[in-house]
């Protein structure tokens, strides 16, 4: 027998009140933890995915949409830009390097991205097996694509038009998997990468039937912008600045002098988080209110139970317990309540995130890790403990003040 066991016995002696308080506290904590996990991981992922991309140049439209579609591959592209115009920009002295992207097709919801090998280098992609594409219609699969679709090196599949699932198939062309990438936890994991020419050819053949000779098209560009005699289009151009000066001049140049628009990933993302911020802080507020209420609940539960327990406390004093031990007993009950709430809250939070992730097949959420434990969760637990202590202060003081003689002779 000790104080912890005694507190525990008192708690389980009134299971409903204890259960309610623990659940209230756990829910509040769970919401905070889900928010923390998502915020931390999304922000980290967003930054990782955008690393090395200073500017995205694409068709005019919403700059946020442009960033979301061509850096994170979650929104639809704004449109296409002229290859020649893109080439002119890439020759600008402020531009260090450019990577072209051609979007437009998908396979079972995973986007087929036409690009060059620089893109693989940008994300430091490594091959699990196979190698990068060397001919038209060869593709490299992101780790997640390969896993979810069960495709491996040497397999073939047919792409569908459009960047989301359920559009019509491009019947003539089979893509050949030339390699599969190692999982990196970034955007590349859920992409199907190929050469720009593969994407072009798919659509040309669609439009112009099959009179084009395949021999012409089998040459593809591995680095830099593709060459073409006819006017061609790409979707976006990822740009790296040569120097800090470019950050000031280049966007202005693109936006005012060309038919294209330029958007900076870091700027657009911080704008997005600002927009989402209102919702997040409201949820956070709600969570803190929940925790506050559960604190109040703990207080009321302890206080009420003390009324019934004044005799018990007096008895404890009569059999040798000191005032201090009674105070400890009450605090211990508050502690155990908050401790349980914290543990259950953390479990609920992580499980809930795991559930959300398992419900999403292709979105950004998929790459989140539900079972990563953050340092800030410790702060949440600490906060819960503070609530527990605060809720126990007044009841503990009452326990301290209980006069045994009066209590015992009252009956």
């Amino acid at each position, binding site marked *: 027998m000790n104080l912890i066991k005694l507190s525990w016995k*008192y708690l389980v*002696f009134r299971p409903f009140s204890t259960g309610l308080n623990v659940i209230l506290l756990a829910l509040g904590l769970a919401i905070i933890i889900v928010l923390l996990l998502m915020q931390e991981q999304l922000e980290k992922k967003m930054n990782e995915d955008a690393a090395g991309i200073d500017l995205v140049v694409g068709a005019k439209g919403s700059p946020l949409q442009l960033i979301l579609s061509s850096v994170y591959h979650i929104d639809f592209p704004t449109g296409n830009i002229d290859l020649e115009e893109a080439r002119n920009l890439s020759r600008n002295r402020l531009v260090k390097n450019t990577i072209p992207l051609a979007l437009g097709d998908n396979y079972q919801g995973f986007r087929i991205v036409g690009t060059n090998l620089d893109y693989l280098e940008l994300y430091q992609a490594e091959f699990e097996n196979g190698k990068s594409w060397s001919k038209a219609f060869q593709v490299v699969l992101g780790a997640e694509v390969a896993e979810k679709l069960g495709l491996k090196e040497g397999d073939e599949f047919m792409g569908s038009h459009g960047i989301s699932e359920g559009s019509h198939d491009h019947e003539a062309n089979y893509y050949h998997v030339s390699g599969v990438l190692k999982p990196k936890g970034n955007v590349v994991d859920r992409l199907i990468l190929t050469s720009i020419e593969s994407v072009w050819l798919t659509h040309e053949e669609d439009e112009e039937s099959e009179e084009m000779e395949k021999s012409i098209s089998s040459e593809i560009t591995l680095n830099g912008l593709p060459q073409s005699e006819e006017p061609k289009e790409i979707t976006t151009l990822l740009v790296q600045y040569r120097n800090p000066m470019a950050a000031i001049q280049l966007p202005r140049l693109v936006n005012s002098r060309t038919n294209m628009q330029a958007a900076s990933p870091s700027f657009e993302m911080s704008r997005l988080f600002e927009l989402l911020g209102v919702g997040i802080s409201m949820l956070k507020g709600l969570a803190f209110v929940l925790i506050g209420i559960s604190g109040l609940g703990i207080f009321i539960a302890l206080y009420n139970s003390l009324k019934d327990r004044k005799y018990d406390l007096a008895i404890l004093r009569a*059999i040798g317990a000191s005032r201090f031990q009674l105070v400890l007993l009450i605090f211990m009950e508050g502690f155990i309540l908050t401790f349980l709430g914290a543990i259950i809250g953390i479990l609920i939070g992580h499980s809930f995130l795991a559930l959300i992730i398992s419900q999403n097949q292709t979105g950004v959420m998929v790459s989140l890790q539900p079972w990563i434990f953050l340092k800030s969760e410790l702060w949440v637990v600490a906060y819960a403990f503070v609530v527990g202590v605060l809720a126990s202060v007044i009841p503990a003081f009452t326990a301290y003040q209980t006069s045994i003689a009066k209590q015992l002779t009252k009956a």
Partner: protein
Amino acid sequence: MLLGTKDLTFTYPGQRTIRFENIQLEEGESLLILGKSGSGKTTLLNLLSGLSSPETGEIKINGQDISKLSGQKLDLFRGQNIGIVFQKPHLLAPLSVMDNLRMANFFSKKKNEKLKQILIDLGLSEKVNSSILTLSEGEGQRVSIARALANEPKLILADEPTSSLDDENAEKVIQVLKEQAKKIGAALIIVTHDQRVKNHIQKFIEVKSS
């Protein structure tokens, strides 16, 4: 001498001062404290157990002047040396019978291997691990006696232990108190106005509010 009091007085706010007779008690002796309701019997008991402190006078238990002890030391001294049986059992309902006894051991920092034997002696062998809520009134009172004995105290104080019991249970309780006090060599003081108790113990003092 196990217990000795000298010139004890106590005053409730706004009331007349109560003066208590001096008490001298040896090990194994029993004493009744008699008196009308409201005469201050329970007050005397509270003084003896250190639950409240006298206005004047001194109380020596086993050589220790308890008015010189304070706070935690007094609580511990009480736990270790005085066993108290109250009018009502006042057991800790969330705990089992055995755990109620162990609790007494825990707070007074004593170890007693004979807890089970005490329960058996008190006719509670079937109830060792029962919940307090399943006990009858008489059983409850016997458990509270067992708890008072759990720390093998030098002094057992009982406040109207039989007042809510029927004849049979009252008889049992008095017998058990006397036997057990003798067994561990403790002095026994019973506050009562119950005739059934008076038949068993001859030595008494009377408390009068004068």
